[in-house]
């Protein structure tokens, strides 16, 4: 079963990579981009027996650094 973990920087945290992407989009002539934030998508192929609680623990213990990042779990059907 595929589960997707979206890891994004918290609101107040500066995102230099997002800024660089923003700048590159503008230099390509794309106008109207107000802001860019870059994050990570981690896909897990999990056994049916893995619980929601275990996925939360994976996020907290390793996949996200909760000092600077938020995470969102999208459990596959």
């Amino acid at each position, binding site marked *: 079963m595929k589960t997707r973990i979206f890891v994004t920087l918290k609101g*107040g*945290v*500066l995102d*230099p*990579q997002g800024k*660089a992407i923003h700048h590159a989009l503008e230099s390509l002539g794309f106008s109207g981009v107000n802001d860019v934030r870059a994050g990570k998508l981690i896909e897990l192929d999990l056994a049916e027996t893995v619980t929601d609680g275990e996925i939360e623990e994976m996020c907290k*213990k*390793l*996949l996200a*650094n909760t*000092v*600077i990042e938020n995470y969102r779990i999208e459990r596959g059907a």
Partner: protein
Amino acid sequence: MKTAVIVFPGSNCDRDLAVALEQVTGRKPDMIWHTDTELPSGLGFIGIPGGFSYGDYLRSGAISARSPVMRAVVAEAERGVPVFGVCNGFQILTETGLLPGALMRNAGLNFVCRDVAMTVENTQSIFTSRYKANEEIRIPVAHHDGNFFADDATLDRLEGEGRVAFRYAEEVNGAARGIAGILNAQGNVLGMMPHPERMIEPAHGGLDGRRLFEGVLEAVA
């Protein structure tokens, strides 16, 4: 003083740190591989070197911080053994939770590799006792992810408790409040981005890094 240097796949400053420790203590450090689960007994100093452990995958220091040897390092740190993390070692110490905050991509996005000026903010710790208060020293940096971040409450606490050991005297990487190195609450764990082990003999261009190791030797021996 008996010392150890932890070596991860992708560490590349482990030998620099080993040379510095041998020069200052007169004794070669034990080089400890990351899969080891126990550390030698009687260590007076544990060094976590710079480099790109695990290729900086996921986040700099994230995978190393969960390696078997780090559980032993955390246990030693909690017993009061001096633990020193430089560059990638600082990133690993924040990822283990021994030090607060996180090291993010440099604000300018560039890899910064040069000597930088910084001030010694705390001269009471075992690592900084050989420096004068507010002394300006020059130590090289070489990093891509050295932009120290913590929330304002944490930064205020670090400042209030005298846990900012070193502060950049020039703009380097966008670090919050110019923080270059911090101590844990007990004062036996130091993490810093600049490389004092690369400023320990005249041929390096200065000796400003040497006193850090001499201070620990004096305190522990």
